[in-house]
């Protein structure tokens, strides 16, 4: 029998092998189709495709009776079960599917089994189907146990829930297996001769499957569970019945081992260990017998050790100490136990018991022995590595005689897993375990180097430096030592680099001095190092780094100083000779400086030329590193630079150049995307950002929106998600305004709503909330037609302004500003009513805003509504002093009057507009608001004319329109207020139509 894997799987695998051989050897089930048997046999031999064809033929053949069709379905379910098992067995992380997907595969097969059983109770294969279903449930449960142990549970599932499910599946399997067992038992009783032996084989297999399901259920239930205790009691009794037939066979040993484990699982340690010992104690004289029972005996020892180590001291018994006596016996009876995977696994539990009994040194020695001997078996190797990891729990590494190589591997794995504390402990163990200078040369210095890397990864730069300094100081004492010499050519550079990183974090001058000194020392001590950069290169590098550090950020910094530093860095970088190993990376830095200075065309050309140029082959690591860095930078620049140029063209108003620039960037991205993903850090985010910007720049707003939608759904917390959402929000807003200019109001509203939603998404992730943003968002939702949200955000903004106002001294300038903003929100809220054409509700509120004082209001409104012959005195004395409204109020009220006109309202509109025009400061005349008032004045007179038919009113409309024409202001007005010309033309047309001269 091939050495099986983990305990339960070992057992099941052994049974599966036996079951497969028993079942294929047995005659075909009476009554089932021959085609099914053929397909089943083919699938067992790996010919799944052929088997599937046969099963599908059974289903699809029109002549197939329902029972055969059902058999075909059942057969496909068997294949589906195999597929699920295969996925469940996948351990390579990149290929492994998430647990819920694997469960889905099991469930799909299970549903077919369950359906077949339910609908074909009398079918000859019904019982077999129950056995298949039981095995599927066992496989699913085992897989889930592995998921629990490996931390693969999905976030929505707790371990307790998973265990509960596992117990449930085993429970169902027990029921299904019991039916099979009864049938097999009945067959066994009825048969004789060879048939009886075959029947006994089948019975044994089913029975042992049932025992394993009971064990699985008991292990999954929580400690102290009454159901588990009862299950074990029943198991103990059933075991006695099992023994009547199978006593003296290897099956008895497997059953005894399971019964022992089950008893331990419910806390009956004495009974459980007693059963396990009964198996472990066997020591046949015949080598054949010994070989036959070796697997089960070693599993028994392993289980004794595991249970003892897990239980510790209980009820007055020191179980680990007790178990050590069993292991002494194992060593005596099975002196070559370390030659097999089973013996090695048992030895690991022996080590656990040694450690629990206080003998840490012996435990360490044993685990290391297993790790070395078991290297060829993936399961033993994994278990040994885990056990070694347990030895270094706690600071300072392992104590005892440490094998440096083994612990170096433990450290490497922990470092890969990101468990830096464990990695550091492991590498410390390596150093402690190096007893000779030769071992230090082979492992010790590397371990120090790795310790430094672990601290560096946690941004603990001083500690990282100390670890590298340990190597440096050792080398300074023994400069002729070859290994140290080679080591410090790299670690010496890292030491200086790490000090430099420390300085950049602390900004401490003393650290800067130390960093510079370290680099000088490195240059002096290792002139032949690959890492060496000459004085010119260092100088250029420093000038470049200093320049980019001056980049203004958050309104801090001087743009002029920054640009000057960049300009100064370029010639120094360009001076580096082409023979320098760092030449490529310095070239990329020149391009970077050019890009930052806005000389994007030059930067992009440099990038394109470098990327296209053939590179001479090299084996020099320094040159390779330089090229890799330059490659990443140039790839980035080839896109960034193009986008920057396009944005600059956009700002200048050269739309064609901008679109061409974005298109060029998109094309370059498509060409280099694969390489960018491989070479550039955080490439995914960069590519998303570039693509979004380019799609927007080329007018493909909808496509860009779709892209951003996918990005923010997949990774809402990614660093660039908010930026992209804001960007697309702005793009949708601009697209909406274009529709507005074309008077395509439906599209305008749709795009505004989309823009509002994107901006809302950003706002929800921004703290603290800003009332200006809230007000703006309210306006966006209003434009988008979602008045409910608009109202909500405007109200929130208003209360925030009011709260801010109350925080300032009464009557102060700051308080007035906040109160004005709050008032603007009030007006915006009223405007929502206007937008919803609820003019009758909106107008009185606007009139309140126009004249706050209730007494004065009536008089003002009465005058405004009376006639259009306002005198200067009335304006100066009676109206303007009493009017509180802002221009915004004027705008909204006159607009409402004109949309819900009556004679009085239009008179009031004309008068208010006149007041607005008369009070407009000179410096804002001929701007969009003033132009709006002018046109509205004419429109209001025209509206009034429609009511009064007074030539006077019409005349004024005509006069205003003529004035616009005569002064030649229309083209300029059209630029300031798009659509102004169209409105003027309409005014003229209406005048013509109305016969107004």
């Amino acid at each position, binding site marked *: 029998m091939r050495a099986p894997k983990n305990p339960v799987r070992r057992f099941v695998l052994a049974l599966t092998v036996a079951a497969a051989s028993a079942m294929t050897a047995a005659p075909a089930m009476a009554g089932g189709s021959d085609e099914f048997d053929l397909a089943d046999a083919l699938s067992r031999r790996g010919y799944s495709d052929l088997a599937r064809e046969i099963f599908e033929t059974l289903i699809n053949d029109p002549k197939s009776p329902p029972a055969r069709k059902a058999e075909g379905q059942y057969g496909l379910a068997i294949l589906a079960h195999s597929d699920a098992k295969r996925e469940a067995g996948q351990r390579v992380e990149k290929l492994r599917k998430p647990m819920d997907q694997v469960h889905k595969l099991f469930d799909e097969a299970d549903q077919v089994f369950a359906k077949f059983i339910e609908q074909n109770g009398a079918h000859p294969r019904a019982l077999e189907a129950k056995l298949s279903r039981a095995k599927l449930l066992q496989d699913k449960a085992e897989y889930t146990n592995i998921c629990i142990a490996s931390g693969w549970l999905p976030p929505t599932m707790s371990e307790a829930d998973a265990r509960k499910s596992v117990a449930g599946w085993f429970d169902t399997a027990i029921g299904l297996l019991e039916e099979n067992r009864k049938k097999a038992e009945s067959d066994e009783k009825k048969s004789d001769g060879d048939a009886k032996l075959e029947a006994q084989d089948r019975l044994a297999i089913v029975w042992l499957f049932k025992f394993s399901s009971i064990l699985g259920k008991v292990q999954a239930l929580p400690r102290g569970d009454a159901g588990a205790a009862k299950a074990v009691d029943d198991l103990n009794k059933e075991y006695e019945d099992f023994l009547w037939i199978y006593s*003296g066979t290897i099956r008895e*040993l497997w059953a005894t081992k399971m019964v022992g484990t089950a008893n331990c699982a419910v806390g009956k340690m004495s009974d459980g260990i007693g059963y396990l010992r*009964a198996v472990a*104690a066997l*020591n046949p004289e015949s080598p054949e017998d010994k070989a036959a029972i070796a697997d089960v005996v070693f599993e028994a020892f392993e289980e004794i050790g595991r249970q003892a180590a897990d239980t510790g001291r209980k009820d007055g018994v020191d179980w680990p100490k007790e178990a050590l006596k069993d292991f002494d016996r194992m060593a005596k009876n099975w002196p070559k136990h370390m030659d097999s995977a089973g013996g090695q696994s048992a030895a690991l539990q022996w080590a656990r018991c040694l450690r629990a009994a206080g003998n840490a040194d012996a435990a360490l020695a044993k685990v290391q022995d297993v790790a070395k001997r078991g290297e060829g078996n993936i399961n033993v190797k994994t278990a040994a590595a885990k056990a070694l990891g347990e030895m270094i729990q706690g600071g*300072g590494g392992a104590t005892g005689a440490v094998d440096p190589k083994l612990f170096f591997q433990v450290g490497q794995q922990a470092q890969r897993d990101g468990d830096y504390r464990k990695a550091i402990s492991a590498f410390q163990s390596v150093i402690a375990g190096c007893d000779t200078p030769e071992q230090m040369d082979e492992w010790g210095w590397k371990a120090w180097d790795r310790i430094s890397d672990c601290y560096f990864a946690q941004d603990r730069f*001083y*500690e990282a430096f*100390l670890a590298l300094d340990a190597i440096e100081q050792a080398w300074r004492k023994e400069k002729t030592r070859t290994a140290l010499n080679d080591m410090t050519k790299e670690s010496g550079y890292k030491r200086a680099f790490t000090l430099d990183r420390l300085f950049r974090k602390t900004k401490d001058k003393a650290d800067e001095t130390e960093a510079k000194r370290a680099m000088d020392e490195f240059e002096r001590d290792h002139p032949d190092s690959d890492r060496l950069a000459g004085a010119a290169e260092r100088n250029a590098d420093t000038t470049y780094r200093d320049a980019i550090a001056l980049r203004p950020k958050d309104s801090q910094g001087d743009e002029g100083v920054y640009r000057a530093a960049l300009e100064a860095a370029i010639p120094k970088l360009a001076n580096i000779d082409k023979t320098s190993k760092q030449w490529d990376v310095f070239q990329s830095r020149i391009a970077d400086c050019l890009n930052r200075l806005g000389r994007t065309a030059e930067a992009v050309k440099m990038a394109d030329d470098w990327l296209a140029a053939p590179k001479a082959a090299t084996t020099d690591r320094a040159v390779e590193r330089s090229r890799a860095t330059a490659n990443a930078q140039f790839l980035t620049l080839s896109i960034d630079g193009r986008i920057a140029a396009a944005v600059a063209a956009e700002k200048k108003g050269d739309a064609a150049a901008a679109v061409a620039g974005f298109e060029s960037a998109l094309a370059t991205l498509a060409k280099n995307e694969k390489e960018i993903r491989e070479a550039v850090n955080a490439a995914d985010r960069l590519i998303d950002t570039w693509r979004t910007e380019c799609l927007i720049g080329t007018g493909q707003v909808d496509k860009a929106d779709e892209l951003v939608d996918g990005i923010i759904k997949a990774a809402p917390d990614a660093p660039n998600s908010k930026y992209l959402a804001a960007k697309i929000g702005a793009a949708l807003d601009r697209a909406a305004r274009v529709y507005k200019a074309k008077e395509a109001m439906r599209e305008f509203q749709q795009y505004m709503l989309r823009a509002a939603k994107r901006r809302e998404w950003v706002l929800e992730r921004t703290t603290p909330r800003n009332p200006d943003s809230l007000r703006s968002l309210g306006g966006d939702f209003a434009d988008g037609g979602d008045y409910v949200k608009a109202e909500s955000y405007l109200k929130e903004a208003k209360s925030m302004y009011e709260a801010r106002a109350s925080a300032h001294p009464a009557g102060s300038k700051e308080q007035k500003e906040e109160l004005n903003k709050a008032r603007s929100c009030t007006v915006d809220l009223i405007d929502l009513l206007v937008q919803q054409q609820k003019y009758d509700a909106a107008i009185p509120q606007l009139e309140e805003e126009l004249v706050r004082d209730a007494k004065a209001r009536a008089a003002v409104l009465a005058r405004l509504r009376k006639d259009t012959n306002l005198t200067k005195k009335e304006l100066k004395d009676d109206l303007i002093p009493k009017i509180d409204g802002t221009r915004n109020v004027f705008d909204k009220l006159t607009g409402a009057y004109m949309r819900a006109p009556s004679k009085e309202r239009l008179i009031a509109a004309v008068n208010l507009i006149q007041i607005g025009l008369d009070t407009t400061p000179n410096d804002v005349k001929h701007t969009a608001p003033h132009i709006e008032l002018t046109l509205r004045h004419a429109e209001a007179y025209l509206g009034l004319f429609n009511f009064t038919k007074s030539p006077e009113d019409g005349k004024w409309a005509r006069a205003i329109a003529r004035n616009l024409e005569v002064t030649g202001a229309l083209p300029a007005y059209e630029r300031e207020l798009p659509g102004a010309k169209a409105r003027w033309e309409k005014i003229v047309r209406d005048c013509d139509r109305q016969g107004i001269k």
Partner: protein
Amino acid sequence: MNSPAMNRRSAARAASSALALAAAVAGGAVVLALAQAPAAAVAQDKAPARPDRVVWTEGGQQKSRADGRLSAWDWDALQYDAARKASIPATDVVEIVWGDDEDGSYSRGLRLLAEGDGAGARKAFEGSVSSRTALPNIRAWTDEFANCGLGEAWLLIGGADAGAKAADAFGKARAANAKSMITDRILKGAASAELLRKKPDAAVKAADDLAAAGKAAKRPAWELDAYLLKARIQADAGNWAGAMAAFDDASRFAESAAAAEKNEAAKARLRASGIESACGKGWAMCAKADADKSGHDQVRAYFDGLAQKYGEEPAVLGAAQNARGKVKLASGDAKGALREFAKTEVLHFRARTEVARSLWFQAEAMKALGDDAGRTARLKDLKELFPASEFARGAD
């Protein structure tokens, strides 16, 4: 081969009495242990003569006798009376199971002590102590051993009342046998009891008694324990001068004992104890300097002197490094101190106690720098890497 089932069935047929029985089956070592029937508790003038079981080591092997009884026991030797009498050196004894532990209360008490059940152990030992009154033929070992166990149970229970009761129990144990082989347990327990009662002077006296007993019994480990115990008592009471003197005594004693010791392993343990004591003195000095807010330079000088004396000892190098950090911290240079403590953590990782101490000090330095996040991170490291250390308890 015999199957387990066959083994069990045949063993069941063979078992015919309620006595302890171990059966070996051909081809294996299947051990069937039937439950030991409890001996009946008989109130008679003469207790049944159940043997004492003694386990000891001799020549590296473990040996045992269960065919006789102990007639005498003290810190020199045990006299085992049987058909073949034996004198067993007390220092070699691993375990004694007293035959006249009639109701098993003493062994139960020991088990419960090991499990940390103070209340249960107290009850058991009280039963054991009082059994001598009920059964006068039971030998005097209960006065000594059971009272010691009772005292330890009271210490587990804790509290001021427990201190008095523990002290009483230990006093009785000491009175029962002035040369007890468990004198170290008795006197250490007595010292702890006095501390519970907030009587450090009495505790120091118990430590002094232990030192004297160690000398008399030629047990250097007892003497060393006594000095270290005294040092800790003094340190806990804030008597730094007393603590330093005690650590000095311990250190000197350990050195001379190590010099005289022939056994290499024992020699190494004594040397390690000496170094630990020497470092203990330095940290007592440091605690005093913290309290006085001066004197940290002397602490540093002391540890540098130790480093010169002991060479490449990780514990000393680590301590010296930490001391450098303390000097800087005391002078207000928390940043500089942090770097010194980091050196202990990175370079002197073999000295676990000092690494734990450095993490504690790093947290102090970060607190001084106002770095809450850093402080929390260091305390978390301390609790997770060195959960059993006194500093981790302080971190809680």
